[in-house]
Structure formats: structure tokens, C-alpha cells
């Protein structure tokens, strides 16, 4: 449930922002994430940013998955 997709904040005006998702743009609300800044990636759900995505955490997760893939190859 709860379809939410990553969107990049391009421009902020008061409690709203212009966000870009893969080449399309939309006006979104920052009522739930007032601390969001231009350049942040947010999780967009029904027009509202519900959280700021952790870029570091994303990279750490991917590194972990790459390590698992490497181990799996070694074990054949």
C-alpha cells in the first residue's frame, strides 16, 4: 500500500515545492517535511513529501547487496 516514489526537489516556495521524477515535474506539498531542501530526494505520496530519502543509507544498502552477490558467486 501507500505508493510513494522518490522525487527530487528543484525549487521551494513557502510550504510547497516543484519536484522532478524522472523527467516529469509536479507541484508538491512539504507540510510533512518542512526541513526539506532543494537537492533533497523525498518520498512522494499523493502529492505530499512524506520523508527525505537517506542517500547514504541507500548507498550502504546497495553495498551490502553487492557484497552478498559477491559471496554468492564465490560459493558457486
Amino acid at each position, binding site marked *: *500500500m*501507500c505508493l*510513494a516514489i522518490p522525487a527530487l526537489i528543484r525549487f521551494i516556495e513557502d510550504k510547497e515545492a516543484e519536484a522532478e521524477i524522472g523527467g516529469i515535474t509536479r507541484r508538491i506539498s512539504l507540510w510533512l517535511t518542512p526541513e526539506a531542501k532543494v537537492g533533497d530526494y523525498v*518520498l512522494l505520496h499523493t502529492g505530499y513529501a512524506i520523508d527525505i530519502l537517506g542517500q547514504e543509507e541507500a548507498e550502504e544498502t546497495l553495498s551490502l547487496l553487492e557484497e552478498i552477490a559477491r559471496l554468492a558467486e564465490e560459493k558457486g
Partner: protein
Amino acid sequence: MKFISEFRRPELAEGLISQIHRESKTPVRFMEFCGGHTVTIFRYGIRQVLPPTIDMVSGPGCPICVTANVDLDKAIALSQISDVIVATFGDMLKVPGSRSSLQEVKADGADVHMVYSTMDALRIAEDNPAKSVVFLGIGFETTAPTIAASILQAGEKGIRNYYVLSLHKLCPPVLRAILDSGEVKLHGLICPGHVSTIIGSHPWEFIARDYGIPCVVSGFEPLDILQCVDMLVAQVENNESRVEIAYRRGVRPEGNQQALKLMERVFEPCSAEWRGIGEVPDSGLRLRKEYQHFDAELAFDIEPGPTYEPVGCICGDILRGVKTPADCQLFGKACTPEHPVGPCMVSSEGSCSAYYLYGGGF
């Protein structure tokens, strides 16, 4: 696409699948609570790539599926009141109530608008000052804060013709009810991702602590689900039961405090009727006294008429994870996506819909 494509890489999926096959020795049943997870699982064929030791069952985390018939009938009754515009997310349009659906009454001339966001509903209210706009507030903790924000915005802007029919539901209480019923034996829970974005991971701790069931909060990409299953298997094989977050880029243990604050400011918990499960205490949300002038139930004389349940529909059993769509006499015959009998077939993330569209038994 950033944050999406990386989490669909096939070579990383292979690694996870391989590890799961190596580590999983104990036969287990895992439940994904959330309908969005059900869609990912079926869309990518995840059940097929898991070892035979792992049995997967879907839970009631589809807010459309668990909306009681009487509540749907209320929404339809509202659409029949003159000068009322019903604004709703697309999901609700086709769900059959006792006699009709919003899509059908719309075809008959009722003023029903589909919207992507409450921001659009507020705009409709501003553009139609002579009418009343009633927003159908469905969804779990992911969506409730956005409706709360819309009510506060309406207050700020002095919009007096905006109302909400609050049908919101909360997840942790219903999970407790399902586990208490003892109908389904679970060895692991794939916890909802975006609900946890809002409420954090602490609210799931009672499951690990009181029921000894491992819990992992998962994202919605195929790699996320696989990683989650891998972490659940690890807990099972190590005889552990605790709450972990796999979806670290989207969930913090404390959740989104601002969203929680807004939700708690506008709403308070109340008892709610879950289709197929019955009444669950403190599992719904209603508008607090200070915001009651936005409450559609108080502002309008809603006459939903008598409630009928469709005969032969076992959506309730499917929602509780006790039966599968294949067990239903109506599945694929009287009940199809074009002619749905129950909500599990209508909602794009209902189990029956997933089974039908993606070939559940395939």
C-alpha cells in the same frame, strides 16, 4: 530512475536468492501485511524464486479491501446529496458497495471527482464555493497525515466547504487482532514500508516481544523484498525475534515526527470496522472536537440504507490469511476484475486481483 532502478538490478537479486536458498532450512510461513508488497511479490514472481521451505501469505494491508460495506454505502449516499461533490482517490471508484459503486453512480450523474491528492480536492473546493466537497479519507498511517494537513490548510485558507469522511485505519492494532485470533501461524512478518516511514519501527516491537515473531520493515522494490526475506530467514535460523529495518533509506526508528504531530493534532483513535475481521478497538481515526466542523458524518444527513454482504464472497478469510483466492468458489468465474464481487478483486493490490492478473498459481 534514481532510487528505483538500482533496486531492480538482476545480478543483485541473484545474489540474494542464492543466499536465501543456502540459509533457509526451517519450513516457515511469512506474511506480507501490505498490499503494495503483495503487488511487488506477484509482479516480479518472487514466490517462484524462493525455496520450498518458505511459504508466503498475504495479509489485510489493503485499505480498500478492508473498508466495510457500510462505509462504502455512506460514501455513495453522500454522492446522492445535491450540491455535494465527492472527491476520491482512484482506488475507491470501482469497489462494490451493497447496491452500487462510485463509478456507477458517477455514470448516473453523481458529482464524483477522482483526484491524485487532497491538494486537488482543496482546489475543487475553492473553485466551487456554492458546493460542498467531501473527501473520502481512506488509507493507513501513510495517508492520514496528508489528510490532516489538508484540513489544517483548509483552516488556514478559510475554506469552509471542505469536509472529510474519515475511514482511516491503523495497522498495529489489526495485526494484534489477527495474531490473537490464532488462525494463522506465522514465523515472520514483512512490515509495511511507508506506514513505517510515518510511525517508525517501534510500534512493531510488540509482535517480536509478545508473539516471538521476527519482523523486518521492507521497501517496495524487488531487491527490498528479497533482502527482507533474507533477514527474516537469518532471524529464524538464529532463533531470534526482533524488529529490523531493511528499508533504511526510507524508514527511521522514530518515524516522521512532524507527520505524526499533524496526524495527532487533527485525529484521535476510535473503534473501526474492518471487512472480514470485524470491529477492532482503537484501529480507526476520527476528527477531534476542534476539527469537527470538517467532519462529513456530522455535517450531512447520511442515509446509507441497509447493508448487504455478497453471497459466497470469502474476502474476509483471504484478508486474514486463512484462505487463498484459489479456495474461493467465485474466483475467476463470477468474480473477475471486470465484474468484481468483493474488494480483494477490485483493488489493484488485493490478493485476488494480484492472483488473477499475475497468475498466482503459475
